[in-house]
């Protein structure tokens, strides 16, 4: 089977944008809600775009432009997006006007850019990419589902390059709502934040950060099925739990969320060192995009920053060889992804 590589990975988040300074000097937060640190959009976008577009769209475009500059691939064969809530800022504008002012005098501007697929289609419109284009909106698995679809497209030999991103914006009102349902905003929890992170997948290895070796998503598995799912993935990638340098999970200080990870790791991956990333990038439906982003750079640079470690199993000093990404939603929906160091690097 042809291999799939991650050629570039970029982010805008609550860390310094479009760079990896979080590896050596992470910004720490002690707040329940933090909005992303935006780069100077004017360096990337036309004045009309900086004025007109909502935050999530600008961030999505800019991460894609940064990736295009890095890789020279500005027109990927496929564009895939994962977003839990889509263009929330625009949706909320329209919804709030509807609820407060009734059904008259509504302007089309916000409605036009409210659908979830606005992000992936804006990326296509800007780069004139007429290839495969899709958006997934499915809670914390939104990005993982987009990544798996890209994986499938490569396997079917339909594409040679793909831009896959996770995107969500968190407005103040929506923070309030998600706090009400206990999803984020808890005292001990990583901040509720926003997502804009994308990777460029390619069947060519040139200057790649790492290999996307395989992935599996499973819904409402029995404990046996979950175990089998992971075993199948490891077998397919030629790995055992002993070869895994670490498992990177979505623990974020929310007791209910973390318990699912702890439980599963105790049963499925005993003795494997554990890493976290949400303390750096915050919590959001599409935050798992940061796991792929962060692990790709750890493998690319051959180092796992100490501040990512948690749990009692120490991470080996040597450069990481393979990192398992483990994401879940409500203890119902599970995703495993294996990223691997490049051969000979």
């Amino acid at each position, binding site marked *: 089977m042809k291999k799939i590589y991650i050629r570039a990975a970029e982010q805008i988040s609550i860390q310094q944008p479009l760079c990896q300074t979080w590896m050596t000097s992470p910004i720490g937060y002690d707040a329940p809600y933090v909005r992303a640190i935006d780069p100077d959009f004017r360096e990337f976008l036309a004045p009309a775009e900086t004025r007109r577009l909502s935050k999530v769209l600008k961030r999505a475009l800019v991460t894609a432009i940064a990736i295009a500059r890095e890789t020279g691939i500005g027109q990927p064969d496929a564009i895939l997006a994962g977003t*839990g*809530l*889509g263009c929330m800022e625009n949706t909320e504008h*329209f*919804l*709030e006007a*509807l*609820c*407060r002012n009734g*059904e*008259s005098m*509504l*302007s*089309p501007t916000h*409605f*036009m*850019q409210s*659908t*979830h*697929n*606005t992000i*992936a*289609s804006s990326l*296509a*419109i800007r*780069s*004139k*990419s*007429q290839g*495969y*284009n*899709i*958006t*997934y*909106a*499915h*809670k914390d*698995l*939104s990005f993982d*589902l987009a990544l798996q*679809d890209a994986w*499938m*497209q490569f*396997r*079917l030999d339909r594409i040679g390059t793909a831009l896959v991103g996770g995107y969500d914006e968190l407005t103040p*009102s929506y923070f309030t*709502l*998600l706090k*009400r*349902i206990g999803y984020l905003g808890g005292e001990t929890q990583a901040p509720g934040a926003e997502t804009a992170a994308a990777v460029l997948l390619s069947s060519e290895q040139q200057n790649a950060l790492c290999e996307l070796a395989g992935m599996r*998503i*499973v*819904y*409402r*598995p*029995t404990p046996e*099925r979950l175990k089998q799912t992971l075993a199948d993935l490891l077998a397919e990638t030629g790995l055992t739990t002993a070869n895994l340098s670490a498992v990177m999970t979505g623990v974020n200080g929310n007791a209910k969320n973390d318990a699912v990870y702890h439980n599963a790791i105790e049963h499925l991956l005993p003795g494997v060192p554990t890493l976290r990333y949400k303390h750096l990038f915050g919590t959001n*439906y599409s935050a798992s995009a940061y796991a792929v982003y962060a692990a790709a750079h750890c493998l690319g640079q051959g180092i796992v920053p100490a501040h990512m470690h948690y749990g009692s199993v120490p991470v080996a000093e040597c450069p990481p060889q393979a990192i398992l990404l483990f994401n879940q*939603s409500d203890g119902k*929906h599970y995703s495993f992804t294996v990223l691997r160091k490049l051969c000979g690097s």
Partner: protein
Amino acid sequence: MEEPILITGAGIVSAIGLNKQEALESLLLRRSGIGPVRYLQTAHTEFPVGEVKLSNSEIRSILGIADTAPTIRTALLGMLALKEALADANMAEQEMSEAAFISGTTVGGMDKSERYYLDFLATDNYNAYIATHDCGASSELIADHFGRFGFVATPSTACSSAANAIIVGANMIRSGMADIVVAGGSECLTRFHLNGFNSLMILDREPCRPFDAARAGLNLGEGAAYVVLERASSAMKRRVKPLARLDGYGNACDAFHQTASSPDGDGAYIAMQEALTDAGLAPQEIHYINAHGTGTPNNDASESRAMQRLFGGQVPPVSSTKSFTGHTTSASGAIETVICILALQHQFLPVNLHWRHPIEGGIVPVTDSRPSREIRHVLCNSFGFGGNDSSLVLSKYDER
């Protein structure tokens, strides 16, 4: 040769009926489901809509869901359609853990959000509906009503969501990730959508007239539909009778504008062409096209152009069944797929209602349901905001 993907079950709920039989009768009797607003709470009663003729409590009682359990209309409609599809395909509960459920939607739980949004902000009283706002929640509600699907996903590409759900499902089968995938979509009417489309000034105050020179916009509809896609060997093993085949598909992006289609219908053209190539068919082997045909001046002109580019002077019979169901947005791809399956099974051409005058240089849609030849392969188009254009090739299933 690759193993065919069979369709072994289908369920449909729309303005023209609560199941395949009712939809078939409505299509054959030219009975449109579009009419004055009855269930949606809206001030805009001037716009006809294609509502599913049941209140939420009536659907709850059909499905045996307690009036106290929080749910959303998108999920209720989805459950009705999924129930028919699963029964059709003879899916036992234990087979579901091996099967995937892919359900497209955009509106998700917006029916409750638009009702309680100000309460969401102020109190904890409606938290259950905050949790059902997002698209993924509706798919999980639908899936979980029937048991334990082993895979669930929610594509959201506006009005092509359900078509893309079917494409994702087919790719899962082709790539060996699944043997059975139940795919489609569900979307209820909301004030959010009605006012949004109204603000874009693309709603017709009359019953919509797709492909007519005087067309003045679309009528919104609602509904849900699912098809059971199954690897041929699995269907044979389970001894279930196929309804049709899914032979090919294409997904392309118009990459032109957020809400308008390109004048030459680039995205539509590429999607249809890819679908034909994927199915290994020549244009003349397509015997019917179920067009996206919303009835807006822009879509129908652009789609006509794309069809003429692909089929030259020999455009096969075309119709838009949105003149029956209204534009069911994210569900439309699946609703129209099931209509195509009915056309293949019962060998008739769904007509295009309310058509009178051709668009200058445009296509002339089907007004007589009798086909001039056997309908073997049909094309089903679904296009969305942002130029998310998809096309499916469905084929008649012959016993060998």
